[in-house]
């Protein structure tokens, strides 16, 4: 089994799809010669040529619109939005066009476009380059939303996103690109709407997305030393959401922590908490805890950024709160 980084896993999914299928192509700002500002598409220009690895002007609205148009014409474009902060500029196209055409045409049109984007804190990029805006798109009927946290997942989920007939907003996390793991030789598509249990446990379920999946796994390891058994579940697809998997996990553990890097207020965790309280009300032994960033634009200063966004310690404290322990013992 080859070892791939998260970055290479994304590239692998893109390249395999493009080798298999002429309808698939990639487009975005500086993705060709430069290989993308995160290096994801490095080398792809050489293999697939400028027709299929297309640089675009610096206009997210234009490139998103062009990708949607191509999709409506039968292509399966993958458009890269360099930072998810810049999704704001493409939102008209994604929300009002991509999400609506299949519905408004009575199914005559489909928009099989994938918007790949990345973001997140951890390297001090400042308030306009580190946001986590996935919850915005989960709110829009007609879009699917994916947030992958491991090389295996990102590869299998991106494949399924490319071949889904609906527009998918596909979130990657900046700090995960270097994360390596062995992946199977064969790319195994991962169906959208299927959660992954990273770690089984008995006492508390942590439902985490993106970077926080790894923080949650670290927190679970810490908790284990204290005799607390933590289950870590990554929904992976935020829309559609694998509600059954989340609810059945909480029915087993009776306690739930929801963790993401985005701000807590109106975050994706709010929706998960609502799903859990409704589906597992009589199984809950403690209020659902939410872990997320403080409600502030992110500061440049590394120490301040670190203070604002959640880490394993924050997840661990939330785990202990669900158990009625005031603080962790350390």
């Amino acid at each position, binding site marked *: 089994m080859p070892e791939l980084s998260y970055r290479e896993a994304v590239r692998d999914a893109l390249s395999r799809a493009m080798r298999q299928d002429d309808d698939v192509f990639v487009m975005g700002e500086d993705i060709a010669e430069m290989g993308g500002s995160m290096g994801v598409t490095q080398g792809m220009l050489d293999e697939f040529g400028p027709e299929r690895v297309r640089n675009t002007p610096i206009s997210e609205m234009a490139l998103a619109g062009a990708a949607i148009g191509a999709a409506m014409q039968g292509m399966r474009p993958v458009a890269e939005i360099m930072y998810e902060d810049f999704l704001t500029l493409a939102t008209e196209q994604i929300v009002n066009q991509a999400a609506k055409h299949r519905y408004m045409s009575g199914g005559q049109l489909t928009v099989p476009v994938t918007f790949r984007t990345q973001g997140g804190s951890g390297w001090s990029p400042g308030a306009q380059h580190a946001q986590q805006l996935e919850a915005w798109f989960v709110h829009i009927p007609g879009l699917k939303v994916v947030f992958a946290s491991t090389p295996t997942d990102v590869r299998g989920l991106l494949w399924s996103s490319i071949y889904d007939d609906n527009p998918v907003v596909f979130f990657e996390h900046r700090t995960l690109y270097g994360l390596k793991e062995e992946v199977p030789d064969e790319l195994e598509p991962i169906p959208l709407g299927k959660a992954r249990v990273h770690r089984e446990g008995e006492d508390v379920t942590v439902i985490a997305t993106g970077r926080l999946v790894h923080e949650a796994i670290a927190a679970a390891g810490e908790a284990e030393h204290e005799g607390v058994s933590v289950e870590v579940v990554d929904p992976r697809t935020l829309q559609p959401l694998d509600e059954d998997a989340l609810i059945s996990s909480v029915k087993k553990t*009776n306690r739930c922590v929801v963790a993401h890097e985005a701000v807590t207020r109106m975050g994706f965790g709010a929706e998960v908490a609502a799903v859990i309280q409704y589906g597992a009300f*009589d*199984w*809950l*032994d*403690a209020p659902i805890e939410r872990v997320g960033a403080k409600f502030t634009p992110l500061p440049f200063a590394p120490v301040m950024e670190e203070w604002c966004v959640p880490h394993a310690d924050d997840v661990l404290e939330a785990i202990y709160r669900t158990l*009625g322990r005031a603080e962790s013992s350390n």
Partner: protein
Amino acid sequence: MATEIKLPRLGQGMESGTIVKWLKSEGDKVEKGEPLYELDTDKVTQEVEADASGVLLKIAITEGEVEVGKTIAVIGEQGEEVATDVQEPSGEAAREVSDDEQEEGTPARAREQERERGRRASAEPSEQAAAMRASAENGGGGGRIKASPLARRIARERGIDLSAVAGTGPEGRVVAEDVERTAASGAPAPIAAPPAPTEGVEVEQLSSMRKTIARRLTEAWQAPVFQLGVTVDMGRALELRQRLVEMHGNGVKPTISDLVTKVCATALLRHRAVNALYRGDAVELYPTANIGIAVAVPNGLVVPVIQGCERKSIAEIAAARASVVERARAGKLQQADLEGGTFTISNLGMFGIERFIAVLNPPQAAILAVGSTEEKPVVVEGEVVVRPRMELTLTCDHRAVDGATGAEFLGDVKAFLEEPGLAL
């Protein structure tokens, strides 16, 4: 203008009722006075009539237990907008409701305090809300037990009273572990966990009526009671009853029970200490004999009351008795039929029961158990003769009635039945 239909207080002491079903659907036309829904109180299930005409715009509460005064539906004109939040009376509306229904006792006052706190909190959000939270944290939350949903479910399933469980969670919340621990120790659980039903066992959830029977009779069991028994020679009473039956015309045939009711009424007014309610810090002696008749109904037992028996003839008592018994068996009793009782008679004679002890019907001070009339050999003036005999057993609450008082009363009942002329 839409009219909010609120859960009425159908009788003294009624705090809540359970809506069984609606007889109209949203959008139906409704005439004032038409039956609107069925309500199960702790005493009866009855149809409640609409108190406004129009269209039933909204059913706010489709079924389940509801506090008195809560809005359960809205009647108005076709197409009229209904505020979506009709469930909570607020502001002036709440004040009106509580003023209208101000009553003795703490529950209403506690609710009013809650509302007042809510009003103040919404007027001055920050400080008042903080004060409210603080007070709730100090256990001032109106007696609500803090428990997690899981703890509540486990307690419900195992029949554990949450108020008997010490909470160890944050802010004293009862968590699942606390309930498990209580269940394991078994001590404070007032209701033992029932064994899992086996094949063929039918599980019947308690109706409101059965719960009331259970609660009130358990309450009665705490009263210090004593029993007095007499055997009555029923010769004259049977002759009288025979005459009354022959003369009853179109009316209801009087029964022995009706005779007993009548003579008890007369005796009760002569011994008013027995015609009394025990109220904890006082005993109320009543000037009229409002006699409750225990009636077996298909799903339980009810005690409709015949008011003012001392003023009624036996024929009138028979008519009143026939009416309440018929309505009791048809489930058509109204709350008013069950109120105001000062004494109860329970007769199992028709089942061939010769004697039994009735359980007190609190707050009444006494209850009379009537047995069957049987031919018995007795000694009359040195001779053994066969006479119709009936046993009476009086159960008295010793906190209200002493032995001698009860004995005098029962002696009079016996005398009146043996020589009805004495009751005149």
